[in-house]
């Protein structure tokens, strides 16, 4: 069994008396799609933000490919191959779609000084175009990202996370606000990306069908603690989870 890509050990974060994350431990294998589900207030977002360097955990360890990254910030995590999408859309509205994708990975091309002398697309033009075609948004590629529909912006957001070929991508409620008819397409797209790039995903999501269909393994969080980790089938059959969360 190879080294896990991501290893979280006994992570804790409290806000005053509230234990948002209360001793969470899990591993994510390379190439795995790992879902995180749980009722509102279960600590999923706090867990995510800790993993992304947005907030500092109180205790515990986060290891990325064996390296301790517990206290690193978003910038350093990105350089180590962690990408993310946002729950509220955070594309660069005034830039074109193509430029959004290019800027998402340009900082990985050479040093800052060398980049001053590179062409505008840092050599990433072809890669951006490939992603645009894969996501089927060729027809809006040159429009300003702010002018796109919500669903299209969502795709750009996801595309931006993947441009720098991260080993680990954290997706924060990718289905939020997306038209139900498009959710299936989104799931297919993510599976495609997972298979072609062999990166690992950690996905927070409330849409049960989506999670069960997409993820290899799922972790259920309730009140800051891990209630269960298993395959979708195992989770569906887990009585505790059914009682606490899924209903019958």
């Amino acid at each position, binding site marked *: 069994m190879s080294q896990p890509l991501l290893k979280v050990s006994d992570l804790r974060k409290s806000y005053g008396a509230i234990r948002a994350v209360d001793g969470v431990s899990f591993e994510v294998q390379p190439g795995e799609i790992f879902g995180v589900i749980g009722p509102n207030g279960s600590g999923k977002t706090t867990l995510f933000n800790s993993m992304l360097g947005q907030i500092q955990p109180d205790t515990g360890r986060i290891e990325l490919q064996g390296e301790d990254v517990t206290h690193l910030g*978003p*910038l350093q995590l990105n350089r180590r191959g962690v990408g993310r999408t946002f729950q509220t859309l*955070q594309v*660069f509205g005034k*830039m074109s779609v193509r430029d959004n994708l*290019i800027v998402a*990975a340009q900082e990985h*091309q050479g040093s*800052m000084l060398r980049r001053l002398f590179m062409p*505008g697309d840092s050599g990433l033009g072809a890669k951006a175009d490939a992603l645009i075609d894969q996501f089927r948004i060729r027809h809006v590629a040159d429009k300003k990202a702010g002018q796109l529909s919500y669903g299209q912006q969502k795709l750009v957001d996801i595309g931006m996370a993947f441009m720098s070929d991260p080993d680990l991508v954290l997706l924060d409620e990718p289905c939020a606000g997306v038209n139900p008819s498009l959710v299936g397409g989104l799931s297919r797209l993510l599976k495609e990306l997972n298979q072609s790039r062999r990166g690992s995903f950690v996905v927070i999501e409330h849409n049960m069908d989506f999670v069960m269909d997409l993820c290899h393994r799922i972790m259920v969080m309730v009140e800051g603690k891990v209630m269960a980790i298993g395959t979708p089938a195992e989770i569906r059959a887990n009585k505790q989870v059914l009682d606490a969360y899924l209903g019958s």
Partner: protein
Amino acid sequence: MKTRCLILFTAIAAAALLAAPHFLKSYGIYLLSYWLIYTIATMGLNLTVGYAGQKSLGHAAFLGIGAYTVAILLKAGVSFWLGLPAAALLCFAVGLVLGFPALRVQTIYLAFATLGFNTAVWLLIRNEEWLTGGTFGINNIARPEFFGYSLEGNLAYYHLVLGITVLMGLKLWILLRSPWGKAFTALRDNAIRAESLGISVRGYTLLSFAIGAAYAGVAGGLFASLVQFIEPGPFTVAASIMMYLMVVVGGPGYFLGPVLGAAVGVVLPEWLRDVPGVANWYLPAFGAAVVVLMVWLPDGLLSIPDRLKARREAREASAARTAAARKEVLQ
């Protein structure tokens, strides 16, 4: 399409700028130089404020640092051609320092911090007579020689200023077209997202201040030899605010915004200065115009084409929807 328009425009403008002085009296040529110098300074501010989204109400301080550096060095016997790059480097360094508060404080607090910086620099210039001549200033600032060819005359000096303006403009154009340009825009539009994509918010923020400052430093050096007498007056907070407004009026984030802004903010009042009855009303009118501009065109004058385009596209989209709806109804 846009690039071709820009190149055509630049070619016409270049021709006009080269021919113009021959139709103007000495004062007119002087005014053109004045305008170009402020264009350089405002270009720098446009990078900091327009492209990188920072707040800077202290730009005139760098103009002053540049001017006094060149003037003091000239008086000490150092050549203009060494003094000018020295001024640029010094301003770059000071600009970096000014960038640090920008990492800690946001928007309006940053605006006031830069305003305070300007006050501090101005106070130093005004009070430290041993260095700057205080309120008496420095006079008899020489104009340089270029390989034995004197640039003393207004026309000759104008050519120098024009050349440097074009050079600085070109450098900025290249910078903005490079990946740095995208990084600055990302920083402006969404710093948090930018950080999560590996864009060093810290690095680019500091650079935006430093480069902007360096531009003002170059402008300041040219300014010193143009006006040949400098005193603290042009480097006050009020001057910084005017420069900020020049960026805003021209259009922040538009490459040619500073050209237009400097024309409105610097050339227009100079030109109107000798018109009786009007001269004193320039500033009140300008102030009122800024208020009106914010209501009608908050993105500046150069945003007009984009506004028209957006309106046209909205109309087309609405027409398309109506047509589609009609088709459905008729089926």
